């Protein structure tokens, strides 16, 4: 479980999990960028904004997060860029499925 320092939450105390978003990178992205990250997040933002935030903070991930075929799932449901995501939620960054 690698963590990218730039997105690790500096927060401490009982509210920490409520003020962060858990980020998972699947497939090749997990190998390239680290499987799991934690992003500080005090209030809701759009998925489009989240793509930018993650891309800025996880080294090398900006390019794949800008691709339309990189989809994001919030709490296990794929959502459009207009969806909102907030503290305590889990976001998965999904490369194109290979199929089984």
């Amino acid at each position: 479980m690698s963590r990218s320092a730039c997105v690790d939450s500096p927060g401490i105390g009982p509210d920490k999990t409520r003020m962060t978003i858990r980020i998972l990178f699947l497939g090749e992205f997990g190998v390239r960028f680290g499987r799991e990250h934690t992003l500080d997040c005090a209030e809701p933002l759009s998925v489009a904004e989240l793509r930018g935030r993650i891309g800025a903070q996880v080294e090398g991930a900006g390019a794949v997060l800008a691709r339309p075929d990189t989809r994001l799932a919030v709490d296990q449901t794929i959502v459009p860029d207009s969806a909102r995501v907030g503290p305590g939620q889990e976001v998965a960054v999904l490369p194109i499925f290979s199929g089984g």
Partner: protein
Amino acid sequence: MAVTALLTRQPPAPEAELAAFLAGRTVDGAVVAFVGLARDESRSGPVTGLYLDHYPGFTERSLERMAADADARFAVSDIRVIHRCGEVAPGEPIVFVAVAAPHRRAAFEAADYLMDRLKTEAAFWKREDGPDGPRWIEPTDQDRADRQRWSD
């Protein structure tokens, strides 16, 4: 009527699955089973092993959704899908699909449809390992074309 879709790290056991699926079946005249095996070679060259990454929970639901869609679309009685995740050696089964129906056309079509969807839309990320190192792969053009045969 039972529709089941399971994800497993163990290799599916096609013969035991088929035996269980056939047992006591007197209403259905047709059972179609598909077994997908890991090949020791792909268009990119020799393959020494596969790794199927998945997103726990999300991937299971992608399998369940396809099985339910096949059930809704065709006149079938039972569907069973077992899909592997994790490390797979050449020659090992990756997927087992069985469909039972009163008549064979529905059984063939449902199995065919399920495989076309599984090969393009199942939430896996597949890495092929070979002498030149690992490669992460995408559905082939043929897989995409096969999927297009079933208008939604």
